[in-house]
């Protein structure tokens, strides 16, 4: 047991069983193992117990007790996190929110929805569809990730360039603080200038400050029209320059996705889509009215041509749109099959620096003799350099992790960040000091103030 935490005892188990009912508590080996890991390739650490709370009161009771007993608490949504964000590195209690997964209220006239943390992203949007509403951040794990996990991680995806990230949509939160106190922060108002923005503090805090038990999200209406195009380029720099100009031109794409040659090759190998195997591919999409999307697409196409696109395809109908998207959607599965344990980077740089970071990533891969592919959301400068690795080959694993480290450090030096949407977890803690400098101390002070016993998701974001 780590210093500062208590050993989990039988009396703790008895307490939890009384608090939430026996069926909602497990110390079975199978459950402990499944909750010992997430989607990040790491060491497995079993929690002491897994609990499925059913309401805020139960969460409050558990936190109050855990705080008194100094037992670690790890809130967990779908466990699809990519940076070890929900690893119970100090063991303790994992709170699984599968039983708190209701859509509580759809306020369609206000374009808002109130949900419990365990609601799955795609399921929410399916329920919102009849109201012509959507919660748009659209992470790659949309079929499984929970709204609670998205908020805790400030997740986003392909639509961020137009629609922003999860943080832009969270209006109000109900949070259980480590001492069991339940607070409600934020409001149903779209704007506010009333004091510190605690909602924005909790968003992206990765469960280190409290447990989010209710979320009010603002929504958008579904677009009336969509237009999609794919362009191929002979060089990465031509692609990124085209991206930069599109963004600066005033037209706002809802997606501006980039795939490099290695990714294109992997997609073709995996799915036989017959993508043109050029240096890079760019997918762009516009949402709006028939007229606005037609105009925006035409403007984008002329920019793409100007920057030397060697081939252009536009979707004439929804089926063709689906086909154009297939290449981009196939990137992650294809790369996941390209190595036993690929390490997926998540850096963000200013748009003008995309060429630089991608070039640096290739050079670094060559230096460490590892294979690398790059894809990402170029419209917002978010690049996913994927280093092909294998944990069972210790020497290769070491070179791969060092390559990732150098790429992330360089991205920060360009004015970027270590993570755009995957969070810090345990994986990127070492970059926090480099990225945040002296402000990291203030973050730590906030953590100590809110969670003096440091029971909340210990070992994540930074070490105290």
């Amino acid at each position, binding site marked *: 047991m780590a210093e500062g935490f208590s050993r989990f005892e039988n009396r703790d188990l008895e307490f939890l069983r009384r608090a939430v009912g026996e069926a909602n508590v*497990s110390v*079975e*080996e*199978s*459950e*402990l*193992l*499944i*909750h*010992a*890991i*997430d*989607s990040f*390739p790491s060491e*497995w650490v*079993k929690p002491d117990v*897994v609990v*499925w709370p059913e309401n805020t009161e139960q969460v409050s009771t558990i936190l109050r007790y855990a705080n008194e007993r100094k037992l670690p608490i790890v809130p967990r949504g*779908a*466990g*699809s996190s990519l940076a070890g964000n929900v690893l119970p590195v100090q063991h303790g209690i994992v709170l*699984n929110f*599968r*039983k708190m997964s209701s859509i509580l209220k759809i306020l369609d006239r206000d374009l808002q929805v109130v949900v419990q943390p365990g609601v*799955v992203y*795609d399921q929410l949007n399916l329920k919102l569809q009849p109201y012509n509403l959507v919660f748009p951040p659209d992470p790659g*794990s949309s*079929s*499984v990730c929970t709204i609670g996990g998205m908020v805790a991680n400030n997740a986003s995806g392909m639509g961020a360039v137009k629609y922003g990230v999860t943080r832009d949509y969270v209006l109000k939160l109900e949070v259980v603080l480590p001492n069991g106190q339940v607070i409600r922060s934020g409001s149903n108002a779209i704007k506010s200038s009333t004091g510190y923005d605690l909602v924005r503090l909790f968003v992206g805090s990765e469960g280190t400050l409290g447990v989010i038990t209710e979320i009010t999200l603002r929504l958008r209406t579904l677009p009336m029209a969509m237009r999609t195009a794919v362009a191929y380029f002979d060089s990465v720099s031509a692609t990124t320059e085209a991206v930069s100009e599109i963004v600066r031109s005033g037209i706002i794409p809802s997606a501006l996705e980039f795939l490099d040659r290695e990714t294109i090759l992997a997609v073709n190998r*995996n799915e036989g889509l017959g993508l043109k195997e050029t240096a890079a591919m760019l997918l762009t999409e516009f949402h709006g009215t028939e007229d606005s999307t037609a105009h925006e697409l035409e403007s984008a196409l002329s920019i793409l041509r100007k920057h030397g696109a060697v081939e252009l395809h536009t979707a004439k109908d929804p089926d063709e749109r689906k086909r154009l998207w297939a290449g981009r959607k196939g990137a*992650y*599965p294809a790369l*996941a*099959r390209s190595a*036993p*344990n690929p390490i997926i980077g998540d850096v963000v740089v200013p748009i003008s620096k995309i060429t630089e970071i991608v070039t640096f990533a290739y050079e670094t891969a060559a230096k460490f003799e590892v294979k690398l592919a790059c894809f990402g959301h170029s419209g917002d400068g978010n690049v996913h350099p994927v280093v092909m690795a294998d944990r*069972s080959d210790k020497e290769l694993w070491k070179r791969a992790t060092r390559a990732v480290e150098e790429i992330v450090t360089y991205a920060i030096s360009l004015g970027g960040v270590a993570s755009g949407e995957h969070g810090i977890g345990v994986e990127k803690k070492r970059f926090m000091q480099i990225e945040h400098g002296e402000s990291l101390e203030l973050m730590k002070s906030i953590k100590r103030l809110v969670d003096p016993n440091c029971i909340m998701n210990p070992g994540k974001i930074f070490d105290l």
Partner: protein
Amino acid sequence: MNHAADRKLFLADLGPITSYAKRCIRCGFCNAVCAESNISSSFRESRTSRGRMILVQSLVEDIGEIDPYSADFKKLIDLCLSCRRCVSVCPPGIPIPDLISHARYAYLKQKRWNALTLGHRIYADYGTFDRLGSATAPVSNWIMERHVVKRLMEWATHIDARTHLPPFHRQSFESWFKSRPSTPRKKKIVYFVDSYANYNYPLLAKTVVALLEHVGYEVIVPPQRESGMPSLEFGLFDKARSLARYNLGQLVGYARDGTRIVCSSLAASYLLREGYRMILDEPEASAVSEAVVDMTELLLKEYETGALHFNNQASRRVDYHCCCLSKAMSLVPVTTKLLKAAGLVVRQIDECCGGAGVWGTFKENFEISGEIAQKLREKISTDTTVLTESETCKMQIELHTDATVRFPLEVLAGRVSDLQSS
């Protein structure tokens, strides 16, 4: 407790497919499409698809204390419906249901038959029981419908008393087919009938023959045994291999001569195409696999080349239940296109019925199966006919809804111009 020796043995029996378990990235995408993972009683992660994968991964990585020969572990891996929906969404492309079948095989290899209920043994030998049931029908049907027999069966076999197994038909398709004169034609095709259309519902097989002959084929029905899906899913690979070898032996000559093999049963289509190849690394399995065509694929081709015409019956709305195996074999668009060509207004129902072959008939699974079927029940309209290609999906939908359920082939046949009924 350390189970190191047991794990070593288990992994050795699991065989080369073990390497796939290492590749699981635990993304959980499989959970999103797994019907069993999405019902409220499966709130525990160990009851989900990803949960099972992580447990197998823990064995491979030698982490934790899972005993692969424990009843608890077997119970968890037995929750997999083998529906194959997960395969198409898994980023690293892991054949999850195959891995689970291999885990069941590895378990049974050491535990032997003791680990199986009588119901498993009956289903594994369903060809024999179907032959027996058909030979003694209608007495066998009368007996099987008695409540007391059902209760007794439940006690002895673990097959839930609420299950309605399909009745047997006195005259099998096989005997009917042998009794009719054959008309030699230039185009020949082999029909792999499988047990259900042979002994339970020969009308389906007769319809297939009528359709094939209508588009100009001479139909050959070589000797055959049941395709063996339950054996494969239960992990009874020795039994499954023996059935596979027999059937492949009967079919491979035709396949090598370039004669196509048509199936009207989804399970048969799947096994001849993929399932047998999974358990038999033999050239016969590959040769037959390449020659197999599903009846819907064949009909669509005949329609598109102008050999098949539909009559001008009034348009009618149908609910098409896209069953899991049909999705796994990419047959949903094929059937949909055919039904639309025949003038039907098709509404696809994507929800899993929860039957999963015979899985849902076991008393341990019956309630879960019903919970899965609930989502389907909510989608189905009461005033339309439900179509499904799968025999067991038909059985399950009839059990859990009031809908009239028919096979697409039957409905299509009713709309084919000038079809000579058999």
